[in-house]
Each structure stands twice: as C-alpha cells, then as structure tokens.
C-alpha cells in the first residue's frame, strides 16, 4: 500500500462516521484527486483481495470502513455491537415519499399515503433521517421536509441519485392494462 493509502486507512479507522471525499483530501493537500482516488482503490483492493474482516464502502458522499456482513451474527451474539432497530413500514413509506418529492409538506405525504403521518414525521425527525428544509407557499406556510445525510448512511446510499428514477420504477400493475387506446383517445380532448 502507498503511504497515502495508509494515511487514509488510519483516518477512516479513527472515524465512526463516513468521511467526505474533500475531508480526506484535506489530510494530504499535496495529493491530486486522481491520486486520492487511486489510494482509495488501493485500500479497497487491499481489504478485498488480501482477505479482511472489514471492507471499504462508499456511503453518503464519503467513505467508511465497515465490518463484513458475514460476521454480524457472531458480533451480535457476543454483544459487542447491536444492529439498529428496523424502521416500521409506515416510516419507510413516509421516507420513500420524502426522498422522491422533497421538499414536501405533511399534507402532501398524507395525500399519497392515505393516512395521517404526524407521529411518523416526528420520530423520523428525532432519528435524524429527515429535517425541515423550508416552508411552503400555501395556507399556513406548512413545514417542508427533506432527507438528511443520516438517511443516506442508514440505507448505504452514495447519494440520492442512487435510488431508482421515478420513470424506472416498474409498475407491476401497469402491465395489467390491456391497450393504451383509452389514453390515446383521452389526450386530444385535453
């Protein structure tokens, strides 16, 4: 491993949270972005090829060293660390809507889900997965919510674009449609 790769390893080892790429770059101002990337590749390869219990993962716009999934059971059994609680279905639905429609107000989320989301929003906010990002134009200037970096960390996403695009989502039910005649006939009327 290059000295830069070792430096990055030490920094990543010392941090409990993902370290952003520009923060890593600040460790060695001399290094070019290309050198930094090759050092990160170096480190990742080192873990993957030489066989280590940890791996280097790109997460939330940064990098983090994580234990490999195969050792989770043993670590948890020994009570050295515990997996965080799973999110409820209601919380996941609400997060999914916010992730795609942010900034979005409570009323709009409730319209899509068909149920009240007050308490769900509160608990998501407490867990740091969402935050208030502004206020809407409408009546009463409603609070608008958006996802946070913790959201990306929780779902091991590099960035929001990693979620499937709205038009990529295969709508299972759309296949049931017999012929697009009705839609074609309806369009000219509009």
């Amino acid at each position, binding site marked *: 491993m290059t000295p830069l790769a070792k430096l990055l390893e030490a920094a*990543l*080892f*010392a*941090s*409990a*949270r993902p370290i952003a790429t520009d923060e890593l770059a600040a460790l060695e101002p001399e290094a070019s972005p290309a050198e930094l990337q090759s050092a990160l590749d170096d480190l990742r390869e080192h873990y993957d090829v030489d066989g280590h219990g940890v791996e280097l*993962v790109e997460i939330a716009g940064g990098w*983090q*060293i*994580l*234990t*490999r*999934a195969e050792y*989770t059971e043993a*670590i948890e059994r020994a009570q*050295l*660390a*515990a*997996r*965080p609680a*799973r*999110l409820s*279905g*209601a919380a*996941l*639905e609400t*997060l*999914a*809507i916010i*992730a*795609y429609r942010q900034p979005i107000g409570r009323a709009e989320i409730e319209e*899509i*889900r*068909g*149920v*009240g989301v007050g308490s769900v929003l509160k608990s998501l906010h407490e867990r740091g997965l969402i935050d208030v990002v502004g206020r809407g134009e409408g009546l009463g200037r409603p609070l608008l919510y958006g996802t946070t970096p913790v959201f990306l*960390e*929780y*779902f*091991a*996403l590099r960035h929001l674009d990693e*979620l*499937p695009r*709205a038009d990529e*989502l*295969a*709508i*299972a*039910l*759309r296949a*049931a*449609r*017999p012929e697009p005649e*009705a839609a074609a006939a309806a369009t000219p*009327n509009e």
Partner: protein
Amino acid sequence: MTAATAVSSPALGPESGFVIELTEFSGPLDLLLSLIREEQLDIYDIPIARICEQFVVRIRTLGLNEAAEYLEMAARLLRIKAQMLLPRGDEEAWEDPRAELVRRLLEYQQMREVVDVLERRGEERRNQFSRAYLPQSPAPPQAPLALSLAELLSAVDRVLRTATRPNMHEVVPRALDVPGAIAILRGVLAIKARILWTELVERTAEPWQILSTLLGLLELAKLGELRVAQPRPFADVEITRDAAGEAA
C-alpha cells in the same frame, strides 16, 4: 367517545373500541391494492361495486371499521359506485369517476416499490457495523484550558471596566382603575336600566377615568351584563341593562 358512537359500534362489528394498531396494512390504499392483487383485477378497469363490497367486508372483519381513514375510503368507493350507476348522457364528455382513485393507487404502488428498495438497502447496511458503535457521534472533547490566575483576574478586571451600568427599566404602575369603574357601572345600572355615555362620564373627568369607564363598559358588555348601542354615528352612546344576561 360519545354515548351515541359507543352504542352504535356493536352493530358494526363484534368487538368495539379503538383501533390502536393496524399491523397488516399500512393504510386504506394498501388494503385496496392487496384486494386488487388478490382478485387479479385490472387496475384501469376496477369492478367498483365488487371491490367496494369486499373492502367494507374486509375492514369489518379486520376491526378497522372505526379507523377514520378506512371509513373515508369506504365512503369514497361507495360514491364512485353510485356515480358509475348514473346514466352516461354524453359518451364523449363522460369522465370515469374511478380515474382519481386509479391515479392514487398507481402513485401509492410506485412508492411501495421504492419502499422495497429502501428496505433491502437498509437491511444490508444493518448487517454491517462501523468502526465505533455509537448511536450518535459525540462532540470532540474540549482541550483543557491553559490559564493562570493572574490572566483570569486581569480578564475579569477588563470585563468589569468595560461594562457600563445596566440599563434599568422603570415599571410604571397601571394608571387605570377598571375594577373600580366596573363596580360603579354595576351600581348605576342597578338603579337605572338605561343611561347615556355623557351621563356616565363627568365633563371634568380625567383621561384615566374616561379610559377606565370605557374598558369597564366593554368588559361588562363582553360578560353580557349590558348592551351598548349608538343610534347613528357620533350620537350619544346608550347603555342598557341586559335582562337576558342578568337572568343568566
């Protein structure tokens, strides 16, 4: 809960009371989608009468018939069903009353697919531990303060020298006597059922007396003990005892 609903609920289902947890379905749209899937129906051509009936049966058996959101959906389905039964006068201008429901169902279905993605990613991440198992990263510890006693004392001295005298705020006692004015008004109205504003306030009255009387008047008007009327603009204000308010 009111007595009326408490009485009516046994008629709706075998067990009554509040629905606290709805574990199986995350909402009425979820239930509706699962019915459509179970029956292998075409979402763009939902047999509304059939699905409506099943929806109502299902919320009854699940004991959801007291959850407002499910009831609202049941009502919506019934309305669409009724609209479908109406004769279609002009086939061209006819708008499918199911269109809005279909749009919402598709939107919901799309969101459920995102939930599947998130669930999978979240589960993968849960199975990996980061270097330090910490629910929240604590703030980095403060460096110990390197300060001698002399430095501290000179800092205190600097602060004391630059500090100006605090800006004291003088509290002015409230110059009005509203309770006193109310007592006078009540006394006057006990004797006279009707009185004019000019009779109530003497010509020589001080501004604080006039204001006290005015506030007392408004207070009593609010309590319903008297009525204030002005026949036309700038006319003398008439104050009358409110019999109804007095009786109450």
